[in-house]
């Protein structure tokens, strides 16, 4: 089953400002498990790409927040998740664009991020 995860950055990832609960190692785990992953943030896409390169994590997409719909149309998956920390810019945006939504703490508890699971 193909699962796509879109990560917000600020307030979601440990490298965000403010830092969020999801570590880059957790991202790497789902990457290695074959999930389609990428970021959807108010940070410019060029800055998102730099961030992933810095941590040597290859991602499938980097998009601005308002372009989440492009991710859905651009990738075939069985389930689409967006993880973020803002009600309007993350949760509502995700639901409007056909994604399931997870708050960062909810997401962190998912077995996806367990290397052994």
């Amino acid at each position, binding site marked *: 089953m193909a699962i796509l995860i879109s990560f917000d950055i600020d307030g979601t990832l440990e490298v965000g*400002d403010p830092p969020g609960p999801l570590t880059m190692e957790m991202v790497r785990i789902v990457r290695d498990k074959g999930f389609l992953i990428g970021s959807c943030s*108010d940070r410019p896409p060029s800055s998102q790409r730099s961030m992933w390169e810095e941590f040597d994590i290859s991602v499938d997409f980097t998009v601005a927040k308002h*372009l989440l719909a492009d991710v859905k149309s651009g990738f075939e998956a069985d389930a689409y998740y967006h993880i973020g920390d803002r009600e309007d810019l993350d949760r509502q945006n995700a639901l409007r664009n056909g994604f399931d939504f997870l708050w960062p703490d909810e997401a962190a508890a998912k077995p996806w991020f367990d290397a052994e699971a």
Partner: protein
Amino acid sequence: MTTQMAPESMYRSTEGLGVWPHRGKVAAVGIGHSPTARRWDGRAETSVGAQSIMACRKAIEDAGVDPSQVDGIVLVPVTTTGAHWDADTPVPMDVVNAFNPSDDPLDGIGQLSAEWLLKNMPELTNVKFTMYAPGCMSAAITVAAQAVGDGLASTCLVLKGWHNLEGRYNHGGISAANEVPGSFALSPGRTLWGAPGCYGTALQFAQYCTKYGKHHDMMAPFMENSRRNGLLFPEGYWAQHRPEQLPPEDYLNSRWIAKPANLFDNDIPIMASAAYLFTTAEKAQDMAQKPVYILGHASSRGLARSIVPTLEEVEAETDSTGRKIYESAGISPDDLSFENMYDGFAQFHQFHIEGLRYRGMQRGDALDFYQTDISIEGPNPVLPSGGNIGSGRSRFWMHTDCIQQIQGRAGARAVTGVKPEIAVSGGPMPMGGNFTVWSATPN
């Protein structure tokens, strides 16, 4: 010592006042900056109070004076970027008690009084003059320049601190209410119709584009230049935390807030404090840094007639501001080496510089001007500080940059296509702000 808000008589807000009587007799010497942060992390040592003390001490040290020589302080007591302390949230007493508190526990956390500052800077043993200025550093500079010129102080700290708390301001409170008072519903700015903070400027920009046949994409070179300059400002937020350029494709593909204003046309709220040390031209000669003389100051006090300032009102006001600035300093547009007018919203910078007739530009010329060489290496630098777009919302980068450029201390940001001799900085809003002309020489 009771500290008063500066009286309106200290500002030069009408045309026809002539050359500033203290032209060249007041100088900026020392500069001090705190580190920047996106938001307060709750620690005493990163509070706006602590950051402001740090900025003051650095400015004093930079000027090479003994703290006991400081006899005046002008500061802005309001420190919020927009977020206010939630009345239901307990004030962190460990932070309060880490300092010598005043009567108000929020002092040093969500505001800043002269009393608190003096209690926590015991080395300032000789301060006899304190005064408040409203809003931002631009006003504090004006008041301090006038105070030193008038002899109210001779070695004066000028301070602005900002605090930024968690949350999206303006999105709670009355914006989330089911009912609102009639006065709010019809008020200028935030209303029943849901205008975001940048709406007024975006509307003026829309009218500017309609009137002069321009479009939003033409802002891209200005935005790229501002961020580039900001990344050369080691004191700034982007340089310290996220050294990212803002290439046109990222700027132009950003989400809209109020089209034609997108996310990057709005500055990013941050925490930071800055202080300058002003003194008389005579005393400046014995200090550690090259004096930067103040040739004049001017203020705008425009009033919109109805719910929002129109482009036409903004153009009339900034035209008048330009005339006041030159009249006060006794200079003409041709004398400006560069400009550092305010940019926080990016889309009104052109109103300021067209009002200045910078490099001979007329109304409707600025966006075309942005397509030419506006870099710090060129003959026509635009906003070499990078402003708020380049370094975050502090409203003081442009002043620091003017002083540093003229002192020859702007480092990698130094203008090289012009000799930095006379510059203007100020803001914030086109309809209301305070502006200063800086010079390498007193005349």
